[in-house]
């Protein structure tokens, strides 16, 4: 029985989501689709319903950003670069950035409508998880 529980726990830990999409606790939004997240971070969508949304990216090439781009945006860096060059002509700039997961979390906590991704291990009662990947 102990072995079975151990195997179940191990299996669960392998399946646990590595990163969480988080928003401020003040936001009434409770869930979001990957398509909506993608549209928000590609600046195609500025709101969900009447809730203004401000996407925040992690600066640089951290694994969380690379995973987010590959799994949610489904775009590699070259593809994203092409996309943002085209958006420059449309007058659209990429999301704002923050230098660390800690600063992202603080930003999301304090700015209503801010949305970003942090390691699931960093999630606490100060932010609301609306999607995991």
């Amino acid at each position: 029985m102990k072995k079975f529980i151990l195997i179940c726990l191990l299996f669960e830990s392998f399946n646990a989501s590595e990163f969480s999409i988080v928003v401020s606790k003040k936001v009434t939004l409770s869930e979001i689709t990957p398509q909506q997240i993608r549209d928000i971070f590609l600046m195609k969508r500025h709101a969900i319903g009447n809730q203004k949304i401000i996407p925040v990216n992690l600066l640089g090439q951290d694994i969380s950003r690379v995973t987010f781009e590959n799994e949610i945006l489904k775009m590699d860096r070259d593809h994203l670069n092409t996309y943002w060059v085209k958006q420059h002509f449309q007058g659209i700039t990429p999301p704002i950035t923050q230098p660390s997961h800690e600063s992202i979390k603080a930003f999301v906590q304090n700015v209503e409508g801010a949305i970003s991704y942090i390691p699931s291990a960093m999630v606490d009662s100060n932010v609301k998880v609306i999607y995991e990947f």
Partner: protein
Amino acid sequence: MYLRFLALYLVVLTSSVHAAPYEFGHGFNLHDSLTAGGYISTEFASDQQVDTVTIDDVAVMAYGNIGSNFSYLAELEAIGFYHKNITDGDEGGSQKFHIERLYGDIWLSDTFNFRLGKQIAPIGYWNLEPINVLRDTTSNPLYSTILFPKFLTGIDMNGYLPQSGTTRYHLFGQATHDMDEEYINIPNTHFYGLSLEHELSMETSFGGSIGEFIALKSDEKTQFLQGNAKYDNGSLLLSAEAIAAKTNYQNSKSDVTLSGYLQSVYHFSNEHAIVGRYEYYDDQHRDYRDHIGIFGYSYRPIYPISIKGEYQWHSQENENRTLLSFSVLF
């Protein structure tokens, strides 16, 4: 006004005190409320009569966000900046800058947003990415150049359709003169339309538009129905657009013009691509029709720098030609 804008643009561009690191093709991001950029393109054309070299577009633009609910964009462009006929040696050009776009966006919700001012008419794919450097061919299909106004000076209400996360709409209208009538393909004071765009998947989308306009010079009303579809998996891009435009001609019956294209772009690396396009054009009023086949090659050492070559076969044989171009977005 234009000179003041250009002077301000140069001052802004050279004062990079608060600027983020510059990334080629992404503009000079000086502040959240101000990003500056521009583009330039040169073209060589050779047909059976003449060879010409043109510095076709020289454009500067500035845009930014003011708060979370408002953004703006201003763009000035000199088209036909310099032109030389290599065959007979004639040269000329116009260095006059025109208002290409000048608008503000008000972002209210998922469903209701407004764009006010002079803007690109939100019809299809080609019209929304009209500049040389963003295209895969030097030439534009006839579909995109003569059958509907490329710009709108008016209001575009846009957003996602209620209860839909994948269908966008644009409901637009113009009831005044163009902001810069020297710089529009069809000057008009009456232009209304509705466009829909549905994303089936990340690779596939389709859409369509209906609308009408009254050309200022001829006072002739045209009603159009347009459709478009696209498949893009990163290496293969297939796109097709078509339009049927019915014009009520003065002192004669109404006639229909049909036009469309099917284009295939295959990227065999980030830098290199080959392009094939078939175009159809049928103007029943003038009894003029043409089938056009285009084969081209595109080289981008980096995405914002484009070097392209193409050859066009026309069913009207004397219109066959070769085009080469070099263009940059900065």
